[in-house]
């Protein structure tokens, strides 16, 4: 039985675990039908031309992990931002781990999707926001069909979430192969402010396939800063589907750090529904071996006077492959749009590759849209210059790579995260961090 058949037949077993009377179940039913009809995307689909899921789909994934594997905080401590105070929503093999988490309902809600789906208190919110901005795509539908657990964050009007929220998914390798489908909903109401850190981490080398969907709503004058830390083990793959809807005068930034994992696909869409919106999409990708990362972004300018800034930097070595497919769509009504897109890449050797495809579709006539894409190597002359100053080759290369990624790292407003990412990059490049930038 192939994975698609297995998933479709598992849906009946899934239905035994959930409340079928819930409105959400109507969506799940529709979604599984859509997935059954369309199946997994293949390289024949334009949006998947450079990324094949084939090698991931051959594993016999467990769809429902048996039970929570007992893991201790000490096993996961290094993956948490323990140096600052945060709320933590922790899942182990897809199941909520209360002993590792610290959730809240005080000033704002940072809790479980399952409780939000089942608690009448949140019925109106779910009705208003759940599955409202997801595109009709088969992987998203697959997630919707099995949507049950994940993070639910709601920051009420004028509340500043005083601590960042960490959404952490761990897989223990308890199952020979595991498929996870977390579903997150984040609502930042008017004038609120929220910072989120999301991380998927496997604790051993069994294959894991995560198909995650996150919807983020940023209401008027609200601000959301979202950090995705993708530094997983070599057998772990992630399909991250994140959709953002923004309203008047809001700011939303999504920072994606792709440093590990076998295959990572980031589908990141921004929909601007009001005026004077700022959307920021930043990414640093550093790959080696046979790693593959695909950034597929869309910024849809639907109203006048908005901005968007995309800045993706990639450094590739060995046989790693990068894909950047960035689309900016400016509706006819969206005059005075200021859209910027940049994708810069360094190929460290001649076996690595990057497929970069900027797409601009502009229907308005008074806009400022710019995009740039570069693919190059490290500058040998600069390398020599650094070496004459006593900086050895490896450190000199690392310094140049940091310098290359520096303006994206600069956009990180949480110092603890910036420090972490910088450290992770240094570890990856095999240098001690004797320098700041």
């Amino acid at each position: 039985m192939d994975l698609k058949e297995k998933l479709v037949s598992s849906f009946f077993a899934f239905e035994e675990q959930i409340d079928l009377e819930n409105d959400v179940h109507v969506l799940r039913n529709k979604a599984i039908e859509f997935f059954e009809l369309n199946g997994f995307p293949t390289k024949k689909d334009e949006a998947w031309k450079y990324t094949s899921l084939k090698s991931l789909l051959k594993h016999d994934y467990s769809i429902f992990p048996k039970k929570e594997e007992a893991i201790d905080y000490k096993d996961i401590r290094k993956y948490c931002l323990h140096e600052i105070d945060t709320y933590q929503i922790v899942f182990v093999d897809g199941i909520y781990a209360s002993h590792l988490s610290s959730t809240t309902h005080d000033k704002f809600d940072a809790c479980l999707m399952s409780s939000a789906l089942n608690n009448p208190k949140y019925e109106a919110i779910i009705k208003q926001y759940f599955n409202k901005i997801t595109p009709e795509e088969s992987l998203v539908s697959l997630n919707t069909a099995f949507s049950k657990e994940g993070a639910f964050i709601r920051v009420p009007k004028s509340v500043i979430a005083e601590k960042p929220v960490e959404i952490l998914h761990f897989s223990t390798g308890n199952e020979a192969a595991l498929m996870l489908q977390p579903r997150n909903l984040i609502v930042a109401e008017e004038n609120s402010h929220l910072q989120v850190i999301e991380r998927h981490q496997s604790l051993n080398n069994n294959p894991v396939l995560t198909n995650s969907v996150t919807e983020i709503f940023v209401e008027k004058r609200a601000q959301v800063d979202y950090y995705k830390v993708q530094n997983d083990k070599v057998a772990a793959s992630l399909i991250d589907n994140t959709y953002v809807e923004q309203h008047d005068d809001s700011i939303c930034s999504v920072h994606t750090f792709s440093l590990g994992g076998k295959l990572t696909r980031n589908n990141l869409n921004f929909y601007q529904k009001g005026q004077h919106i700022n959307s920021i999409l930043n990414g640093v990708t550093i790959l080696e071996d046979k790693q593959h990362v695909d950034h597929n972004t869309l910024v849809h300018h639907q109203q006048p006077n908005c901005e968007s800034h995309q800045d993706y930097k990639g450094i590739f070595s060995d046989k790693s492959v990068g894909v950047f497919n960035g689309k900016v769509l400016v509706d006819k009504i969206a005059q005075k749009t200021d859209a910027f897109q940049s994708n810069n890449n360094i190929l460290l050797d001649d076996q690595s590759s990057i497929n970069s495809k900027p797409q601009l579709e502009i229907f308005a006539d008074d806009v400022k849209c710019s995009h740039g894409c570069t693919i190059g190597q490290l500058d040998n002359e600069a390398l020599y210059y650094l070496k004459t100053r006593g900086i050895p080759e490896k450190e000199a290369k690392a310094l140049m790579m940091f310098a290359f990624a520096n303006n994206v790292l600069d956009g990180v407003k949480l110092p603890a995260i910036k420090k972490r990412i910088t450290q992770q990059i240094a570890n990856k490049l095999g240098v001690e961090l004797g320098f700041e930038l």
Partner: protein
Amino acid sequence: MLQVKNLHASVEGEEILKGINLEIKPGEVHAIMGPNGSGKSTLASVIAGNEDYEVTEGDIIFEKANISELSADERAHKGIFLSFQYPVEIPGVSVTNFIKTSINQIRKARGQKDMPANEMLKKIREKAALLEMDRKFLSRSLNEGFSGGEKKRNEIFQMAMLEPKLAVLDETDSGLDIDALRVVSNGVNKLKNSENATLVITHYQRLLDYIVPDVVHVLIDGRIVKTGDKDLAKVLEEKGYDWIKEELAQQA
């Protein structure tokens, strides 16, 4: 301190240096002068360890050790410094953090601990003042958008920070106005002592009014053809290089 013995070097198969012999003792300032294309910058690059040049014959001995096979960073660890004719722009790395990295990497290679932050800061301030550099300048990206004069000042600032045993100054005067030339040469002179040595490579005599050499060598077509004292530079300024070429032709 430095002995260059019968040095031959080529780039992309073309021989540029055709048997250079040179000895520099501690406390000395040597100048290499010569027309364009004579191999002056090549000599500087080969001493600094630029791998684009292939040493085909001869040796470079620095403090009794043969350094011909060492990489540029290893030579820097031993105390060799090259002030570039065209310093490279490196966006994203500030002058301060660059020099910190440089100093601490050299210390690490010498088995020393990192320089304490307060000591580093004090030294940076002191040396920036010596080169009359603005504080703001130090937080800018390395050489990015610097004027010609600023780049050269920054080179000598780095030299002041690193305190090399041998400083090779490659056309440090090019692109400098008279004020910058004074500041830069003053910096070089202040750093001079009986333990270190300087090799000044220049096309014009002008710089040698400020940095007075003990020995002047004339480099033509990859060979040192004449060696003299500082007065030789003055003669070259007046008469150009042609008379030496004629002398050579007569000898041949």
